[in-house]
């Protein structure tokens, strides 16, 4: 199937819509072990999450203000860095989000399986 320019743009916007929110789950999951902004960015992009620095850094502060992350400055090294850690509340939220993610995945698999028949489609 050939995708023209319009479908590309449409696809891109739908993909963005679908990916929105996954960064939150991924960040809360990764930060169960403390990490700083750039390290998290690297980990996420290596793991296959497409996220921009200008989205991630403000997001971390927002999650912190919601009580899902805590932060502490580490000044032991030459370059002081702000380390974020997922809180218990953050873990609970991440668990709930991951459960929802698997539920959606299963539902989507069921939908696309051949055995599914649409009611009324045989008429």
């Amino acid at each position, binding site marked *: 199937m050939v995708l023209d320019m319009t479908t590309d743009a449409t696809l891109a916007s739908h993909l963005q819509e679908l990916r929105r929110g996954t960064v939150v789950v991924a960040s809360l999951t990764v930060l169960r072990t403390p990490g*700083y*902004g*750039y390290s998290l960015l690297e980990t996420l992009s290596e793991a296959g999450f497409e996220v921009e620095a*200008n989205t991630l*850094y*403000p997001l971390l*502060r927002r999650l912190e203000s919601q009580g899902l992350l805590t932060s502490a400055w580490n000044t032991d090294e030459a*370059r002081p*860095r702000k380390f974020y850690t997922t809180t218990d509340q953050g873990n609970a939220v991440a668990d709930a989000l991951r459960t929802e993610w698997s539920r959606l995945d299963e539902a989507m698999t069921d939908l696309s399986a051949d055995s599914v028949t649409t009611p009324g489609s045989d008429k």
Partner: protein
Amino acid sequence: MTTLVDRYVFTALRRVPEQQRSDIDRELRASIDDAVDARVEAGEARDAAIERTLLELGDPDRLADSYAGRSNYLIGPELYGVWRRSLLMLLTTVLPIVVVVVAVIEVFQDDATVGTVIGAAIGAILTVGVHMCFWTTLGFWIVERTGAGKDDLNVPWTLAKLPRYEAGALSRVELGANLLWPVLVTVALVLQQFTFTDVPLLDPANWTFWWPALIVLFALKGVWAVWVYRLGRWTRPVAVVNAALSAATTAVVVYLLAADKFINPDFPGFANADVDLRGWVSLAIIIAFVLSALWDIFDVARKAERARKGVPAQVPGSGNTYSII
């Protein structure tokens, strides 16, 4: 000397709340340095690495908005509908009333001419309209930003809000128009005698009988509208009375025009024209009155007939008729 990174960080911090600045300053610099180091390790030159890193971070103003959690819109989707409805109501209902009031007040000024009245009306439309748009939007913007009273404005939709499509009676707006019209015509009729021109346009001799008779007929049309509104439906008597009133009004006007008793013979405005301007104007008024009377009689009769047969109203453009449940 300020470096590129300094300039970038300063620009972003300008639009971040003050109490967060020092923290964001340190964190953002550390993140930029980390990214630059990673690029240099991968073999890029330091200057190029800095430029690429800052380019990837993008517009510092947008980054600041993101840090501050500012929304990039005036009125969000939750309130947009309420805002639009409020503004529409103000502009289509309140604004015309204000403009009519302003125009009427202007008419009573000593030096009022047609020009100054029209000027005052246009001025009112512009000033009052702009004020309405501005203050409504400002109010909604404050509600959007503070969240105060948001739930009161955003009333949940209920089935009771569905409009009705009965081929039913006069709506309130139609009633208003039917009541306003006789008042406006009467006011115009009286005022043209005294104010608009030095010599009145319409024949003053008719004040002994015909002008008062016309005013009574116009007033009766208003009474008729109230009757239909309270009755709640179009009926045959409604159509018959309407036809009688329209026919009587038109008959009076046509008689006066045809007998050359309508326009004041002393009115100087038609004197200089080469053609028989008076005759043409009279003919035009006759045609306008007859056509609008015919349409009015037909329209009301049709509504009465539809209501009698129970034919539902038609929604324009849908090609469907919708019956009353």
